[in-house]
């Protein structure tokens, strides 16, 4: 459990981080380190240089911007958990953050790191997907915005380009009901299956750990948006989805869990 040797540099601004990344081919950003360092210790990742952006305080904020809440990429899970702004406008994001790992993970891990890592088994990427958030990225060529529906591309693969930094996540306020169902064996674990449901005018449902990346339950959403009953819509949760199998769950069991949890999520989202 020791990483290969690497160089380390601490960036003090976004601009500085972008310029270091531009000059070093094999460099990687280090935020909270709670996804990257485990990979390095298992020697599944061996970057030549880590660019530590963890102390760029200008990227840690939660601001009410009217229709949406802007969350700086370096905001720790713990800050999401206790934010009054989120508590009144996007309570689901606080709730989801409170279910990530354990307290030490939540005090180090950042929303930007979690979303940029794009792990299909993580909670926050699926949450931003159901919340229809927008990612703001900065790179050598300036700033651009990427909607969540176009952000997650595959296994640990996102729309961020080489040299780009995720700086902000714009989360629309929730006006209707929501639910987040995380199913795991120990409180500190990743979800075996998780479901986020948001009824914000239309219904959006996303799934955790049902594929190589965070997924939308498109068949369920379509059924809900065309007036199907919750049970009928929930039965379609895993439609067209080929979930992974591991020690905790076979693919069949995951499909079953997805239906059960989607049903619970839709019921809860409809009652609030």
């Amino acid at each position, binding site marked *: 459990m020791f990483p290969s040797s690497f160089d380390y540099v601490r960036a003090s601004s976004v601009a500085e981080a972008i310029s270091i990344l531009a000059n070093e081919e094999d460099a990687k950003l280090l935020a909270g380190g709670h996804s990257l360092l485990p990979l390095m210790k298992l020697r599944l990742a061996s970057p030549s240089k880590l660019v530590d952006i963890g102390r760029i305080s200008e990227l840690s904020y939660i601001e009410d911007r009217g229709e949406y809440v802007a969350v700086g990429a370096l905001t720790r899970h713990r800050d999401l958990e206790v934010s009054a702004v989120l508590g009144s406008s996007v309570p689901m994001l606080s709730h989801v953050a409170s279910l990530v790992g354990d307290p030490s993970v939540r005090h180090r891990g950042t929303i930007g790191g979690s979303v940029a890592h794009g792990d299909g088994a993580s909670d926050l990427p699926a949450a931003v997907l159901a919340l229809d958030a927008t990612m703001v990225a900065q790179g050598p060529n300036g700033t651009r915005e990427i909607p969540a529906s176009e952000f997650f591309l595959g296994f640990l693969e996102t729309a961020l380009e080489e040299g780009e930094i995720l700086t902000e996540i714009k989360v629309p306020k929730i006006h209707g009901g929501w639910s987040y169902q995380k199913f795991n064996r120990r409180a500190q674990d990743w979800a075996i299956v998780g479901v986020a449901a948001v009824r914000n005018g239309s219904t959006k449902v996303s799934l955790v750990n049902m594929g190589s990346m965070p997924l939308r339950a498109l068949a369920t959403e379509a059924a809900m948006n065309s007036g199907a009953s919750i049970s009928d819509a929930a039965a379609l949760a895993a439609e067209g989805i080929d979930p992974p199998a591991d020690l*905790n769950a076979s693919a069949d069991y995951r499909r079953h869990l997805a239906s059960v949890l989607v049903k619970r999520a839709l019921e809860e989202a409809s009652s609030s």
Partner: protein
Amino acid sequence: MTVTEPKTSGGVIGTRMLRKEDPSLLTGESKFSDDLVIPGALYIALLRATVAHARIVSIDTSAAKSSAGVVAVYTYDDLKDDWAGPMPCAWPVTADMKNPAHFPLANGKVNYVGDGVAVVVANSKTAAIDAIEAIEVEYEELTPVLDLEDSVSDSTVIHQDLATNSSYLWELIPNKDAVDEAFSNAVHTVEERYIQQRLIPAAMEPRSLVVVPAPFGGDFTVYTSTQIPHILKVMLALTLGISETKIRVIAPSVGGGFGSKLNVYAEEVLALAIARKLRKPIRWTEERTENALATIHGRGQVQDIELAADANGKITAVRVNILADMGAYLQLVTPGVPLLGAFLYHGVYDIPNYSFSCTGVFTNKTPTDAYRGAGRPEATYAIERAVDALARKMGVSAIELRRRNFIPKEAFPYPSAAGLTFDSGDYAANLDKALSILDIEPILAEKQARIDAGSTKVLGVGLSFFVEMCGLAPSRVLASLNYGAGGWEAATVRILPTSKVQVVTGTAPHGQGHETSWSMIVADKLGISPDDIEVLHSDTAIAPYGMDTYGSRSLSVGGSAIHLATEKVLDKARAIAAHQLEVSADDLEYSNGTFAVKGSPEKAYPLAAAAFEAFTAHNLPDGMEPNLEASVTWDPPNFTFPYGSHFAVVEVDTETGKVELVRYLAVDDCGNRINPLIIEGQIHGGLVQGIAQALYEEASYDAAGNLLTSTLADYLVPSATEFPFFELDHTVTPSPTNPLGVKGIGEAGAIASPPAIINAIIDALSHLGVSHIDMPASPQRVWETINNAGK
């Protein structure tokens, strides 16, 4: 010997004294092996087999040897003259037991993923680990033997020179005909098969060691995270051909063991061999994944159990056949672990006919050995589940059936059909107490109401009434089991000139709080403050004799030795006081640190004065040796037999299969209670480990023999969040087999809890047709069990 209460004078025994160990542990002042700063030490790292079963075609260490910071790289061939023989197995359970030669590095063939193949010596830990990656090994893969029944069939034999995968067949069948007859006359029988999955001990502190050669004289100090400094010293001396007088083993603070540090490991042998070869300090600390691969595993059995009963449900015979997974090699006590349960498959029940047999078999997996409870959780699980199965079959309550079969209170000391003498017990009273706390009727009503309402959250109540044998062990009994050592314990109590007290013990605590409990025993007897007592342990130069800590033995055996040594030293002080006061020793009474003449309390002589007098020796009775010190080595006449009722209440989500533990009640009887706070801590830890076996933990392998649960993300050690607040209570039946009247509590929770949980799950699901589930009862397994029961 009959004891009803410990003879106390100080009122210390029985109090909830805070642990003396904790301030220095909590502030980080205590040092673990990896904390020790040893200048000039070299680091070793092992290249481990990545295949379960293979011949080694070639090992190329050339690149590793020239890797930065590397001092040496060794394989078996390089070191084979550096040890005197293979690593020890101290428990040849039968005369014809098959024991493959087991060396610290693989000799031409690897037998499990994790088997040592080469060792790198380097000047930093990272240099050693980087060099490991530069070693190239070519393997010729062989069929891995992973399943116990495959193994017995010998279709692939792991150790060719042994010609079979069966290490031994061990039987305890006092009267086979009588057992057969009981089964043919039985009105009710049950026949069950249970699987004891492999568990990974996962102590909080991984294994860690530093071997330091002395600058002259050829001596070595071995600092190692072990439960057995004394046994280890002897074994290292024999294995390496070094005089026992040249090895000093010190176990600094040790962060848990649960049996996994009751062993002699390849790394300990290698480090000492290399320290001798290079004349440099050598250090090594296990990584978490190495802990999963290369530290022993626990359990690993297939258990077939049958019960015969008459029309009333009185059980007349128990017949048990076990296949026990030894893993790839026999470690220190691997083959003996099932024997520690072999006598207990009748549980707390008066069953006259007994038949037990166990076949120990090799597999291409990590060796197994003692893990919290060692043999007794397996036995308890089998009998407590089988009794529930019998109750279900007969349609009587599991509680009632147990009552019909309890060994009655009047029967103690109870000679069991398996050949033991159970020391003391009142099982019915213990169960009554548990039931009065549990208040089962409202739970059963709620359970039924939920079924009637078609709820997907169903309730179940499970009982496990356990008994274990602990306090290892009477040496003569160990002899009859072919165990390679005794079961006594040594103690010295020394009252120094300033009347501070040193207690030297042969026990080797690694989390149990011996410094506290031993101080309490001495303080209570001497009427002094526990703060004036220092307990010395876990250093073979300071505590030369000892049998160390495992098998819930330390208090009943080691604590008794301390109690007796304290009495002895007090007798000597009394003789000094009598001499000084010019009275007979019998005329003195002792309290609160002072001897006084009975009837004339003004004629008094303090213990402190006796201590100083013994030191100056100016005026001692004729013929008395100076110094106030006494040593006792205590060999117990029998085991002790703690017991208790454990109830679990679970809620099962029938849609997801998830089990939630709603309540857990443990009413334990561990005899007299020295420190209730420590007892409760031991029960909590044991319960968590036992419940973890029932619900969470399993060492899982793939079809090629790779361990899939080699990190703590995959091997599910639960945390406090997963448990309700445990409800604990107790009864007290003193043990007549030791002067303190104590039994043992270190393993009880792990022994009792797995069947309570599984019985509760089956109870919750029985209306759906479920009558069996294996451990761990993971959500997927519960869900599948419900689905299959419906079919």
